[in-house]
């Protein structure tokens, strides 16, 4: 009896165990075979995290390696409205930290969404608060933000990058593909706490490469001098705006480019596009008498005029094509050099007529007018240079004195640079090197000659004439003590859009020139738009040339050709 009871218990136990194993086996088959695909996906989703990595945007430095623009990782704050217990309380706490109104934050946190941005790209100091305090449903992610540590310095040339790190203006836009960091999507394994873990055979994840570093031809000290003097001149003349460019005539490399008023690319809100437009490239203006420097080069090269050719000044007025051209003073017989030095419109018109429509047009084209200079900056205008077929009877005279033609400051300074360097038109450029993260040069931009425009002899003759403009003519205020300066003043009437005729009260005053005249290191243009009161280029723009030239030559260590000489004992140095 007892034996049969024990046996039946064994059977029961066996059945229970078999049943148990059967259940386990069934569950195992269900999980491992029947639901295998679905569960694998689910597990991967929990263990794996797909992250999109992006290398930092490249840095922009000046010719001496001074940082002009660079990226910083800064905190951005987001909310998960479904996880926030009390939107009103969270908004009240966050408002003073994020500097956003509480009701605005509360409104965002009450939205029926899984994710909302509360504040993006904060200052690093603001992010420290979130290291100490945690609020349910509020999170922080790090994002790259563009910083311009020098503030408004070089703002018109640098441009700026947008909220998502894409270049929108200036160098930032032109070199977008070089500046952009590497973008990569990668899958990381993580544990229950969300920490990244390494599985066997997994390669160590390399950080994505940052964008390339741009080395500019600009010198931040020269840029500062230019901006300071230009701002002062615009303020003194109560002018609408001002533009100045400094370049090396032998290479075409830009040393400075400034617009006034300036803007701070770190603070762009409430600024109109008009404020950040780079007028040196985008705005064409009638150059007025500065064009006579180019006319002189063409007339002398074509042997239509020599510096000592006599021209009659018609005592200040000359009729042409049923209109009358006036000079600012009654002039009689003049040499051609004096025509330029005294800025005689009548003398210039006669030289232009002697040269002829076609040849004048060809030279203006050769000097780069009516076409882009191809500088490595966006938004460049071509200016306005009509084909001689559409010229009127007065056009040749008008163009000779800088009317009926539109040029950009960049075109004009490049053209004067060609006279300065002995007759070669250079391509202006602003980026000299592109380097990678390992500081290896990926691309080097070298000076590029576009074409020879005039002979070195003509360039020398024109330089002597332009020196006369400063020593004996209208550009006396551009003179720099101890240096020979060559240049030309310009005072152009603006066209009144209401009447379509030249305005009597709105002018563009300019000065373009180079220094030292015998071995030019700097070619510069100063353009002041709508100065109030005295508007002559010689009075408004030439002094800026003088002040900038004096300081920049001193900074560059260019010594006067006539230094004081001291005798020293032989052998000592």
């Amino acid at each position, binding site marked *: 009896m007892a034996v049969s009871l024990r046996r039946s218990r064994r059977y029961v136990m066996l059945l229970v165990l078999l049943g148990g194993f059967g259940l386990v086996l069934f569950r195992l088959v269900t999980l491992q075979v029947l639901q295998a695909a679905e569960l694998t996906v689910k597990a991967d989703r929990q263990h794996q995290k797909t992250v999109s990595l992006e290398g930092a945007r490249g840095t922009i430095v000046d010719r001496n390696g*001074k*940082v*002009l623009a*660079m*990226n*910083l*990782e800064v905190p951005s704050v987001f909310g998960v409205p479904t996880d926030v217990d009390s939107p009103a309380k969270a908004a009240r706490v966050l408002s003073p930290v994020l500097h956003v109104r509480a009701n605005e934050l509360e409104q965002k946190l009450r939205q029926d969404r899984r994710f909302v941005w509360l504040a993006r790209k904060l200052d*690093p100091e603001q992010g420290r608060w979130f290291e100490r305090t945690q609020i349910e449903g509020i999170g922080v992610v*790090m994002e790259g933000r563009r*910083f311009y*540590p*020098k*503030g408004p*310095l070089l703002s018109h040339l640098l441009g700026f990058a947008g909220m998502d790190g894409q270049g929108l203006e200036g160098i930032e836009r032109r070199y977008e593909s070089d500046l952009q960091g590497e973008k990569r999507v990668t899958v990381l394994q993580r544990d229950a706490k969300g*920490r*990244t*873990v*390494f599985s*066997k055979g997994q390669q*160590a994840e390399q950080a994505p490469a940052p964008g390339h570093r741009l080395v500019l031809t600009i010198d*931040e*000290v020269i*840029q*500062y001098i230019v901006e*300071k003097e230009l701002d002062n001149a615009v303020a003194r003349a109560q002018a609408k705006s001002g533009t100045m460019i400094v370049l090396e005539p032998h290479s075409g490399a830009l040393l400075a480019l400034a617009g006034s008023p300036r803007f701070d690319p770190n603070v762009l809100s409430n600024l109109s596009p008009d404020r950040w437009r780079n007028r040196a490239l985008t705005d064409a203006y009638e150059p007025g008498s500065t064009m006579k420097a180019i006319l002189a080069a063409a007339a002398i090269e074509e042997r239509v005029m020599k510096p000592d050719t006599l021209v009659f000044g018609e005592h200040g007025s000359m009729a042409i094509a049923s209109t009358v051209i006036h000079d600012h003073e009654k002039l009689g017989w003049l040499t051609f050099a004096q025509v330029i030095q005294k800025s005689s419109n009548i003398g210039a018109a006669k030289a232009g007529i002697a040269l002829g429509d076609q040849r004048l047009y060809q030279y203006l084209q050769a000097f780069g007018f009516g076409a882009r200079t191809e500088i490595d900056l966006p938004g460049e205008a071509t200016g306005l240079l009509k084909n001689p077929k559409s010229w009127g009877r007065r056009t040749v005279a008008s163009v000779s004195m800088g009317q009926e033609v539109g040029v950009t400051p960049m075109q004009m300074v490049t053209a004067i640079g060609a006279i300065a360097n002995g007759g070669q038109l250079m391509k202006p450029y602003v980026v000299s090197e592109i380097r990678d993260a390992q500081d290896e040069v990926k691309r080097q931009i070298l000076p590029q000659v576009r074409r020879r425009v005039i002979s070195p002899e003509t360039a020398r003759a024109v330089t002597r004439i332009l020196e006369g403009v400063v020593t004996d003519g209208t550009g006396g205020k551009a003179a720099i*003590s*101890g240096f020979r300066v060559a240049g030309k003043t310009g005072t152009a009437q603006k066209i009144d859009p209401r009447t379509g005729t030249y305005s009597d009260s709105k002018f563009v005053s300019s000065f373009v020139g180079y220094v030292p005249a015998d071995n030019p290191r700097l070619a510069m243009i100063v353009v002041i738009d709508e100065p109030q009161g005295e508007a002559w280029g010689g009075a408004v723009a030439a002094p800026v040339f003088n002040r900038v030239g*004096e*300081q920049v030559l*001193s900074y560059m*260590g260019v*010594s*006067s050709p006539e*230094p*004081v*000489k*001291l*005798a*020293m*004992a*032989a*052998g*000592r*140095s």
Partner: protein
Amino acid sequence: MRLLAMCVGLCLVFLFVWERVDMVRVGYQVERLKQEKTLLERERDQLRVKVSALSAPDRIAKVATERLGMAPPQRGQIIVVQAEPLAVPPMQGAPVELRIAKHEPIAVRR
């Protein structure tokens, strides 16, 4: 012999387990160091921006003029001097340029 084989087998099992555990441990260590590196790089970049802002020419000019009472040299205060050896033989060395700043009393603002 059998005991030895069992011991070796057990050792291999422990080695395998230890390798896996250590890999995870080192993985966490690598991750922590990477985070530390990121923080240090972030701090370095912040300092770089700060240095760049502090060395801006307009700030230096402002500090020099307003706090230190300095002023840019005026016309005539810098004289470039070309030093030449005396014409007495033997002639040695090339002419050397010296830049001399002429010291004149300037009003110091404080």
